[in-house]
């Protein structure tokens, strides 16, 4: 037994895990000069700093500032804005609504996207290109225009309700527009391409001979799918879900147009505070609660998978 093990261990060194090994031997590496690379990155770094980091920091600062009666700010730092948010059931239910609608959107788009991604992965590169074009084409239409397109379909006397009623499936029109369902439909439609492309990318990376190996070992196509293809596409599923979730959490146009006052999602509420009520400080706090919720959810979600049963897939 012992010599066998020894032999096997000896062999492993022949194909080292490159990433880990490179880090272990920094002495052998020549010192790389950062000069020219940094110079090329400078414009984008300045851009991001000036137009993203600075405003974000400013909003963070605002969220800790209090407002006096006439809307002016005082220089006193406090947690008043956050306290107001977490003690008012209206804002808490808005947060919950935002999370709920985003989760529904993730689930709906995942269910719709996976079959498409699978079809793409199984197609020839040419067909794959056509499908990708089709998937990406809605992105060419402004989201505002698209939402008004949905109005025609979803209004009480719109196409969907009229068809369902004339078929006798329903008696009264369904409340599709200005409802949570309407927002979920709109958001799923808008973010479906991201989900499809994320999943398709991870499906392309699966060695097609794995499915063959599974079949030869006696697994039916369905069994192969659940034992091999689905677990190996988890990285794509996770990144697609993260993308769609973050985008849905921060979506403004679709909730505003498809949900209206009936579906007060966080971005809509924050917009209202800042633009209509001019309460910059409270609006900033809402934004940061939304940001924190999104980040925490995404991190917990990703970690769960990276440490779960299929952690090896994420290496």
């Amino acid at each position: 037994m012992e010599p066998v093990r020894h032999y096997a261990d000896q062999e492993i060194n022949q194909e080292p895990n490159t990433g880990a090994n490179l880090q272990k031997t920094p002495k052998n590496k020549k010192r790389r000069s950062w000069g020219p690379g940094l110079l090329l990155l400078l414009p984008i770094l300045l851009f991001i700093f000036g137009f993203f980091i600075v405003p974000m920091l400013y909003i963070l600062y605002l969220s800790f500032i209090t407002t006096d009666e006439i809307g002016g700010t005082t220089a006193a730092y406090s947690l008043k804005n956050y306290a107001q948010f977490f003690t008012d059931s209206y804002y808490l239910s808005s947060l919950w609504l935002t999370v709920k609608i985003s989760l529904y959107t993730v689930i709906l788009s995942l269910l719709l996207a996976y079959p498409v991604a699978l079809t793409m992965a199984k197609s020839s590169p040419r067909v794959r290109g056509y499908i990708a074009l089709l998937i990406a084409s809605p992105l060419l239409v402004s989201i505002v225009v698209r939402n008004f397109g949905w109005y025609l379909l979803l209004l009480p006397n719109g196409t969907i309700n009229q068809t369902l009623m004339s078929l006798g499936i329903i008696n009264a029109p369904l409340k599709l527009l200005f409802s949570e369902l309407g927002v979920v439909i709109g958001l799923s439609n808008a973010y479906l391409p991201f989900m499809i492309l994320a999943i398709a990318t991870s499906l392309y990376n699966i060695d097609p001979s794995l499915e063959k190996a599974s079949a030869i070992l006696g697994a039916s196509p369905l069994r192969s799918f659940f034992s091999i293809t689905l677990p190996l596409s988890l990285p794509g599923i996770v990144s697609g879900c993260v993308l769609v979730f973050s985008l849905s959490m921060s979506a403004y146009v679709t909730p505003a147009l498809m949900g209206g006052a009936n579906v007060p999602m966080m971005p809509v509420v924050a917009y209202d505070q800042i633009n209509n009520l001019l309460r910059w400080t409270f609006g900033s706090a809402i934004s940061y609660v939304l940001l924190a919720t999104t980040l925490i959810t995404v991190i917990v979600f990703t970690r769960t998978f990276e440490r779960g049963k299929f952690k090896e897939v994420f290496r």
Partner: protein
Amino acid sequence: MQAIKNDVEIKGAFKQYGSNIVLNGINLGVKQGELLTLLGPSGCGKTTTLNLIAGFLEADEGDVYIKGKKVTKVPPFKRDLGMVFQTYSLFPHMTVYENLSFGLKLRKVAKPEQKKKIDRALELVKMSGLENRYPRELSGGQRQRVAISRALVVEPELLLLDEPLSNLDAKLRHELRAEIKRLQKEIGVTTIFVTHDQEEALSISDRVVVMNAGKIEQISSPTSIYNHPDTEFVFQFIGKSNSFEGKITSVDSRKISVQMENEITHVDVGNIMGTDRACKVGDEVKLYIRPEKICIAAAAENVSGLSLDLHKASITQLNYLGTSWEVAVSLLGKPLQILTPDFDSSWQAGSEVYVGWSPSDIMLIKK
């Protein structure tokens, strides 16, 4: 009285992609317990033939039988085979143990029995103790060992190997090649091995099937494939070759005399290749000989063997290969490659030497 029963039988397989014919009437029988190699250049149809047996492809025409049962339309997961792929194809999200238990679970083998079988299969490929490693944590050679034991653990009807050594370095390739041969004999499983490497095919197989352009050129033992190829293609594909052109001057019951320029050489009548083997005086022919079948000596009387035809030649280049010398000579103005362990230290480019060969080592084909 039936001879040894064939484990695999392919009858009249024909396969076409658009206008590209990949299999052009393949008839093949694989005997029980043998290691048969499908050898040929890429695009010759060897992998297609293997996929036909595995069930990944269905031929446009023709049938496949495994152990006497017609399986032409049976999907791969119902064929009960073992297969090893070029890319190892271990399931990356499963440990070595889980990879091996995959097929056993599908066969509803009880857990304790699974463990026994897996232990034995891993021991067979010297991989005991690595059950809990993930494929990522194994070297290429180790991965292929696990892949082989995964294919064998289910005790398949057939073992199919699709270029299993192509992704390994030369040393490992030699090592695993010998191991596959040993394992195959030990277990006795009928094995079909696909490769484009002729040395690999010759060393490992009981029989070699040489394929070219969707057709089988020859099915024989490795020695007769090498020494007595049926066709020009087989001669050129397997090993190195020299060729000359000439004209038949006489034919008797044992030998054919061929004139090349003003020299005469003799060929055994059994050494004719190709489909048309009726030779007569005046036929234009092509002669083939392997570099190591040519003798070379400084003087005519030093060439060993009495039945050799001797020709005068001059050395153009000398290359030392370690185990032998590669000598390029010019014979009748044409280049000739010779591989020889005997070497005269006085030789250099320009030296005049005698070269010769036995009539049994030279092959002839009509033009």
